[in-house]
């Protein structure tokens, strides 16, 4: 087995483990929010539509 194959096997192993760990722990870089972000006490709400422009973009 060549060095290139061994390196690629390690590459596959590392990314596979990362993928499986991400699935198990529910981690995603594409998530809309994170449970590990600052948590706030319950009460009130986040403010509807803050920073959001409503209505269609259609011209």
């Amino acid at each position, binding site marked *: 087995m060549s060095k290139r194959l061994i390196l690629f096997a390690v590459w596959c192993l590392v990314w596979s483990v990362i993928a499986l760990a991400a699935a198990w722990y529910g*981690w995603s870089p594409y998530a*809309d929010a994170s449970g*590990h972000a600052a948590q706030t*006490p319950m009460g009130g*709400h986040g403010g509807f539509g803050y920073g959001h422009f409503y209505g*269609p973009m259609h011209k």
Partner: protein
Amino acid sequence: MTGAKTISCPNCGGSLDVRAAGYTVTLACRYCGALLDVANPPPDADARIIIQYHEAVAQLVLPLGSRGTLFGVEWEAIGWQERQSSDAVWTEYLLFNPYAGYRWLVHAEGHWQFGTMLVEQPERVADNEVRWRGQSWQLDDAPVTTVTNRVLGEFYWRVRAGETVGAAEYACGNDTLSLEHNADEINWTHLVALRPSEVRNSFRAPPGDLNPATDDEPDEAPPAMGSGLWARWIDLPTYAENDAAMMAWAAVLAIMVVLTGMMTFGAVTQAVSSKLTVQIDGPASQITIGTLSIERPSQRVRLTAQTYNAFVNTWVDCDYALVNRRTQQAIRADGTVEFYSGRDTDGSIWTEGNHDLTLDVSRVPRGTYDVVVQAQAHHWDDPKATAPATVNGWESVNTDTRDVVFIASAGGMDWGVFFTIMALLIAPPVVLLYWQFKQRQNA
């Protein structure tokens, strides 16, 4: 490159090029295999027959006359011999350059080595060790007796089939020192490993002399498997490199493992749902969708809001809170379901937005959560509309309330992560295949 000379084989009449004229002693006819003495021909002929053969000659991976540049020198393959020990068969090409002399190109089970004959003798340190150029070389396997099965082309000594010599190999890293000896002489050769692609990309067969792949190339010739796209894939010149193909298969295997694992680990372990009726332009409504228990150290939570066709020119702000029952701390996420439709001045209907909203909350820590949502709905009036726009021509858009179904689930497959990992796994073999293909084209 050399002063070539053409002679006729006295056995079969075939026309033979003597590529290293003046140096070559023995020539094996490429057509009939007869061994000819070209150093001392009789007065009325170009060569003298030493041994007459009538067997079919071998088809070679590198046809004799092929030229290639290795280590900065252009070599021409002028001779070939097939040799055998008790358990192995290999071939050796004799390379020639008029300024650099002779070298060997050894081909064994798909592996290539470039051999340089040594002028000096390595120093014997022990039965299984020699020293050469300051390095220790260890005996690799027991010494064997090798026999020359077949020969073709030109040689600078009296070569013949059936010749036997004692042989041993000493290794130091990837390099090898080969010892061959008989009653008359001892020869040492320094062998350096070459990649198959180096040989393949370096050597070109002379025009009209390209031989098909042969049994001399056991693990480099693409196997005949299938047709169509698959055949074209495996017939890529780079396939013979083997690495790229093995990497591609390893990547496919890894992708299958990742897909299976992610679908297993990412399976939905719990889901709750509730329907909320929100009033258009009215106050915010709140509902507890349900309770989710996260059993793992952390897990993904997917929040979905679904509306229906009557949901037109309306947006609903959704403000979620996952409230930890023990700590009363909330993890928040918010989004908007919005769907608009209108009529252009040319009468065509346009639409924008979706009837659904999906939010993913990553790494929600272990705990029990009440999933609470506050929703507030608004209506948008199309300033260009002369009549209320509809989606399918009959549903009204002017009701005062909208139903929204909220679903919260623990788990869920993350296709974004999967496709990212898939790209990372498949990229190296694809890049390697492409690079090798370009190298091949440029060669």
